[in-house]
C-alpha cells in the first residue's frame, strides 16, 4: 500500500554533493524535506529519495545557501510517467477511460458479504435481499438502506438485527439472530415421562409424579415410566419429571463393496484461464471439454479488488485439470472390518449421546461382493422423555368430581 502511494505521488532519487554531509542532512530536516534511503557514495556525496515537493525545496535550499549541489539520479512514479507520455493522446485517453471505468464500477454492487448468521443460511438472506433490489450489479447510491433493513426483519422473522454497510462496491450485511425462547416448565400441564426406546430399567429417579417402573423391569418404547397421576387423597394430576436409566441394545450395520476403483494421480495437469467481466466470461483457451479421459477439475475464482477493499466486476478464473488413473482395487475383509467398525462406533456414540457403551460385538459377513459389518452394542442410557398427556389420557386419569 505504501509502495503504491509512493508510486502515485512520485519520488526522486537525488545526489547531494557537499563538504559536510551532516550539514546538508540537517538543512533538509530543518526545511521539512522528508527523505528516505540515505546512502553515502564512495566519492563522499550522499544519495536520498525525496518526494516531488521535497525535490523542489532541495533546489531552493541549494540556491539560497549554496551548502550543496543537487544532481538528479532517477525519477520514478506516476507523475513522471504521465509527463513522459503527455503527447501520446490515445494512451492518455485510454488511461482516463480506464480510470473513469474503475470509478464508475465502484457505483455498483459487485460483492455482498453476509456475516453473523448461524442458523439462517446466507442464501436465504441473499434471496430476500434480491427481492428488495439489492443484488450484484445494482447501483449502490439508490439503495434505501433503512427501508430494506426493516423489510428484511419482517421477511426473515428469525433475525433480530440487520445492518447494510456499503464499502465502495461491496455490501456487508451484518445480522444477529433471535435467541429462541426456551421451553418453559408449566406445572399445570399434566405430563408423564414415557420410554423413548426399549430396555431393562437400571435406575429410576422420580422428581415429580409417581414411578411406574422399578430397576429390573423390561420396558418397550412408549411405556409410561413416571406417571402424572399422584394418588394422594382423591388424587391429582401433575407435571411428572425425572430420569430413568436403562440397559438398551443397539444394532447397527454398514456395508462396502469388495471391489471398487481407486484413483492414482499421474502428475499430468493442464491449466486453463478465463476472465469474467461483469457477467460475461471470456475464455483464454480454444478447446473445451475434458483434456483427459479421467481427471479432476479444480476451479479457483479470484476477484479483482482495489487497495482499500473495493471490488471490481472482474474475476480471474483458473481451471486446473489433474489427470488420474483409476485401478480396480479389492478391499480385504480385515481392511473393510477395520474401516466399517470405526465408522459404526462413531455412529453409535452419536446416537446414544450422553449414554455409555457397556459392551460391543462385531459380526462380519460377505455376500455377493459386499462386505457387511454388524455392530451389536449394550448401552446404558437415559430413556425417559416428557410428553404432555392427550385429552383422552387426561380424562382417563382425572380424579372423580373434578
Amino acid at each position, binding site marked *: 500500500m505504501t509502495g503504491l502511494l509512493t508510486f502515485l505521488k512520485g519520488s526522486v532519487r537525488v545526489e547531494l554533493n557537499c563538504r559536510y*554531509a*551532516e550539514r546538508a*542532512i*540537517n538543512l*533538509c*530536516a*530543518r526545511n*521539512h524535506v*522528508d*527523505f*528516505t*534511503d*540515505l*546512502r*553515502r557514495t564512495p566519492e563522499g556525496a550522499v544519495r536520498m529519495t525525496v518526494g516531488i515537493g521535497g525535490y523542489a525545496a532541495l533546489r531552493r535550499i541549494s540556491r539560497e545557501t549554496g551548502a550543496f549541489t543537487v544532481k538528479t539520479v532517477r525519477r520514478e512514479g506516476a507523475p513522471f510517467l504521465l509527463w513522459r507520455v503527455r503527447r501520446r493522446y490515445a494512451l492518455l485517453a485510454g488511461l482516463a477511460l480506464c480510470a473513469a471505468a474503475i470509478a464508475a464500477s465502484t457505483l455498483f454492487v459487485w460483492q455482498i458479504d453476509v456475516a453473523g448468521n448461524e442458523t439462517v443460511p446466507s442464501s436465504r438472506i441473499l434471496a430476500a435481499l434480491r427481492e428488495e433490489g439489492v443484488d450484484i450489479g445494482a447501483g449502490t447510491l439508490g439503495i434505501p438502506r433503512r427501508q430494506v433493513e426493516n423489510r428484511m426483519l419482517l421477511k426473515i422473522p428469525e433475525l433480530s438485527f440487520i445492518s447494510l454497510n456499503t464499502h465502495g462496491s461491496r455490501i456487508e450485511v451484518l445480522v444477529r439472530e433471535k435467541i429462541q425462547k426456551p421451553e418453559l416448565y408449566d406445572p399445570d400441564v399434566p405430563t408423564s415421562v414415557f420410554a423413548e426406546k426399549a430396555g431393562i430399567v437400571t435406575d429410576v429417579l422420580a422428581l415429580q409424579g409417581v414411578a411406574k417402573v422399578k430397576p429390573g423391569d423390561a420396558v418397550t418404547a412408549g411405556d409410561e415410566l413416571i406417571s402424572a397421576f399422584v394418588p394422594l387423597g382423591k388424587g391429582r394430576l401433575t407435571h411428572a419429571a425425572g430420569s430413568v436409566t436403562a440397559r438398551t441394545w443397539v444394532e447397527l450395520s454398514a456395508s462396502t463393496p469388495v471391489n471398487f476403483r481407486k484413483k492414482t494421480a499421474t502428475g499430468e495437469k493442464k491449466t486453463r484461464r478465463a476472465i469474467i467481466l461483469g457477467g460475461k466470461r471470456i475464455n483464454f483457451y480454444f478447446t473445451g471439454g475434458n483434456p483427459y479421459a479421467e481427471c479432476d477439475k479444480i476451479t479457483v475464482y479470484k476477484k479483482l479488488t482495489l487497495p482499500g477493499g473495493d471490488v471490481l466486476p472482474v474475476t480471474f478464473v483458473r481451471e486446473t485439470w489433474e489427470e488420474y488413473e483409476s485401478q480396480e482395487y479389492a478391499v480385504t475383509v480385515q481392511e473393510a472390518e477395520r474401516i466399517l467398525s470405526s465408522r459404526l462406533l462413531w455412529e453409535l456414540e452419536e446416537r446414544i449421546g450422553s449414554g455409555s457403551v457397556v459392551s460391543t460385538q462385531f459380526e462380519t459377513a460377505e455376500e455377493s461382493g459386499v462386505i457387511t459389518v454388524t455392530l451389536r452394542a449394550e448401552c446404558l442410557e437415559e430413556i425417559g422423555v416428557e410428553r404432555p398427556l392427550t385429552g383422552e389420557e387426561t380424562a382417563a386419569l382425572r380424579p372423580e368430581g373434578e
Partner: protein
Amino acid sequence: MKKDRAARGIQRAAEALELPGEPGLGVPRVTVTGGSRVHVENHRGLLEYGPEAITVNAGTLLVKVRGSGLEIEAMSDMELVVSGTVRAVEFVS
C-alpha cells in the same frame, strides 16, 4: 538560562504528576528494535554521520549509535530512523 529553568520546572512537574515528558518538552525518545533499528524522536539534527557511528543531537543530550553499516533509513524534522548492525546506543550529556 531562564528557558532552561522553566523547562526543568515543567519536567519536574510532569515527573511529579507521572506524565510522559516527551510531548510538551521535546524530551527525546529512543526506541531500539532488535539490534538493527534505532528510532529517535524529538531530535535537533545530526552531528556525525558515518557507517560506524551516527550522533544525533537530542537537545538535552546526545544520542550516539555505534555499529557497522549504519544508514539513515528515513528522516523528518521530528524523527529519524537509523538502520544497520547496532552495537551500542550511548547517551552523552
